[in-house]
């Protein structure tokens, strides 16, 4: 896999996770189910990419975590946005919009 593709996917995953957590704190499985639900199955985030992404964002202080109870009373690690995380979300959203507009224009121009 060429590295620029990894880079893009990774950045996108971060954005999606941030967005998902903007409403309420969620645990890992919650995040991946929510993503699958919202994107109608387009994105299925495997634990192999989810965990590293969560931990990376936590180390960067975008997310904070705490242990809590899941909806069916099981112990689970929850993640929530920090203040830095929210700012990051705005920034990333803005950037994503620019990119998608630019890509859309390019595609139209060429058609």
């Amino acid at each position, binding site marked *: 896999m060429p590295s620029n593709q990894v880079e893009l996917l990774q950045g996108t995953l971060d954005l999606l996770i941030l967005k998902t957590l903007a409403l309420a704190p969620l645990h890992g499985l919650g995040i991946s189910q929510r993503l699958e639900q919202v994107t109608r199955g387009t994105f299925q985030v495997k*634990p192999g990419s989810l965990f590293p992404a969560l931990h990376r964002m936590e180390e960067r202080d975008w997310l904070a975590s705490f242990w809590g109870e899941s909806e069916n009373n099981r112990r689970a690690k929850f993640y929530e946005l920090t203040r830095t995380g929210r700012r990051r979300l705005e920034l990333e959203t803005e950037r994503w919009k620019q990119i998608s507009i630019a890509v859309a224009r390019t595609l139209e121009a060429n058609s």
Partner: protein
Amino acid sequence: MKWLSLGSSFFRNLFRRKQAEQSLDDEVSSYVELLVAEKMKRGLTEQEARRDARLEMGGSSQIKEEVRNIRVGAWLFTFLQDIRHGLRLLRNQPLFTLAAVLIFSIGIGANTTIFSMVNGLLMRPVPVPGSERLTYLIQKRDRWRNGFSYPDFEEVRRQAGEAFSDVAALRIFQMDGLSVNGKSQPIWTEYVTSNFFSMLEVRPAMGSLIPSSQNLKSKDPVMVVSYSYWKNHLGGDPNIVGQKATLNGTLVTIIGVTPEGFTGLTPILETQGYLPLGMYASTQPQQNKDDLSDPRGDGVLVFARLQDGITLGKSQSVLAVIAHRLAAENPATKKDLMIRAASLGSGMLSPDGSNSLLAASILFFVLSGLLLLLASANVANLLLVRAIGRNREMAVRSALGARRFRLVRQVLAETLLLGLLGCAGGAVLGSVGSSIISRVPLQSDIPMVLDFHFDWRVFSFAVGAGVFLTLVSGLVPALRAARVNLNDALRESSRSYSSHRQRFRTFLVVAQVGGSLMLLIVAGLFVRSLHNVQNLDLGFDPGHVINFGVDPHTAGYDDVRGREFYRELLERVRALPGVESASLAATIPMGPEDLGAELKIEGYQEAPGQPKPAADMNLVSSSYFQTMHIPVVHGRHIQDTDTETSQRVAIISEAMAQTYWPGRDPIGRTFTRSGDPGHTWQVVGIVKNIRKGLLMTPVSPALYVPMAQDYRSRQTLQVRTSAISSEAITQIIGLVHSMDATVPVFDVRTMTQALDSPDGFLLFRLAAAMASSMGLLGLVLAVVGVYGVISYSAAQRTHEIGIRIALGARPGQVLKTILRQGVMIVLCGLAFGILAAIAIAKLVGSFLVDVSAVDPVTYVGVSALLASIALLASFIPAWRATRVDPMLALRCE
């Protein structure tokens, strides 16, 4: 803020690892539990749900490894982990560790030794402030030289202010006699312009230095002594400043001591005292008072300090303008004059670029660098062998989520540990080696600084060599080890033997054999050359001759009293029991000094373009040829009747007779010397040629004139005794001192010892010893390599050999199969080594006497030696392979 949080994560990760690990475990397992619960809610049984969940998860240990890699400071943990793991492995394989560390140490030690020499001789800067801005000037008239005439120096100093903040000059290094409180001893001095110390910005350790004055050739009767001379020869006298003393009989006042560690600007030589340049005329004997005002002289060395902001390159153009101007003003004598500045930072090299010190350094650097490569090939081989045994370990680790990069790093970390241990060992070996070399007796009383101690440069070099070794020897094995095929490796099959890997190892061993052959050939050439040097027909008999350096002028004797002193000395020495013959000579073979004379020979005209006739000259007393056992073939000896007032006479060597009077009888013919046109010298005898120096060139023409007719105060008293004993030596020194206790006696050596000087055999002996030790080390490495490869491949083929023997193969056939590989390795290695040796033949050739750099005897002999040792090394494992019990060999699979 961001850095703060990164920092806190870093410390959490670093110090609360256990908690972090536990939390990660919990998180992953709670994820699984939630997933299972989710699936069970959808109606699966618990068993099905767990199975599905596990499939969805993938490998949980891989996930954890991924997360660990993401953590801040992950590289540090993994590095520490690698190191810990490496240490454990090395401890578990003490033999392997010992071998690898030893090989590393040898490679690094040899290189560090050579480097510490190069550092001490060529790289260590002069210990003065801003030494990188110090330069020395060289000029080209007929050829490049260091020496300038004093008037030229003054011109340069006056005109070069644009580029240089100051320009100073000195008269180089010579021996004077210093007498303090009635005790007199030799002192090696330089006569400097009065701005010398202010240009260097040197501060005195005590008192003051030569004072700056308008008059550069100040005649103040003062002198400065060096710190080590003050400590070692003046007893560290605290009241030395202001002390009255006599230098060569002239009254001077010692006004100060130079700082510790300052040994002057000339490399290697240690200057012990400094006097004002203007003092030169009053302290030196008549015949040395040549040429300070002579515009054609070359008696002073010129040093200059660059202005701030002026580069060396910029200063060259300023000097070029000055040279051009001087040439234009003196078209007769200074046509095409060129002047350049060279940085003093890296020592003073001879200006024509033919610096043998530099060439020798390069040669030995090449050789020791080769040894380093051999060492790294050897370690690489060891690592490769070990890597084969670790295939399974690597496979398991990569199955558990270790990335390939991680495995490479792991193996490199282990090699790095070996490299560090090797560095330590190498530094120890290197300091031993360099201290051995700096203690080599130089057979001369000339004070020298052979300081090869370890400074930061040597240490960084050793560390650099270690890192180089680590990378070179570790990288390929590391990449190989990490390239594991899980399926192959995990399948139980130790017989799956990679021929590719074996091929690389074979290549390494071929390179080792070749490299060590090259080292051995060079060693062989040096040894043969040394042998030739030591068996050279010198033309005189050094046995039973003792030399004593004497110089009455340094005790204040003028020429008349000096001649009288020597006349009486010879008389009394010849009367001693056991003395067969005694005589005086201005220079001795292989000695530090040489005299030459440019000649005008009656009836001889040099061919156009050829140099003017010239000869080595020696000034000798009567009996000189008897003392040295130089046969007179024609005419007569020098006699006591040859005096100041009689006809000037000369004895010439056969080489001189053949050069300047070919086919004619030279006896009775005359010549004049360029420096002394007033006297005509008449040839009265012919002697056999002798070797006086420069062993690498043909014998040059030589002439001998009576000391009485050309008096020099510095002489070597040469005494042929029936037996050399320390009593005889003490007796003769005592005799000189009984005549005058203030006359110094120095450079007391037997003639055999004197031949072992830096100008004589010493360098040949050193070079042969150094090349031989490198050759032997290389040989050991090569033999270990050959043995290792053959015994490994024999072990790999145990199974195959077992089958062959079981099927009826005779031991001889088995032996042949195994040996064939050894023979191939050795043959390829030999070819490679011979080519490599021929490639550096030119560099080696300039150091050899009477032996060609492609000497077939050496090449064949050394190749045969190496081949037989290497074949023996491969024969042992091959022979062992033939003793394999087929049943055992087959069963052990």
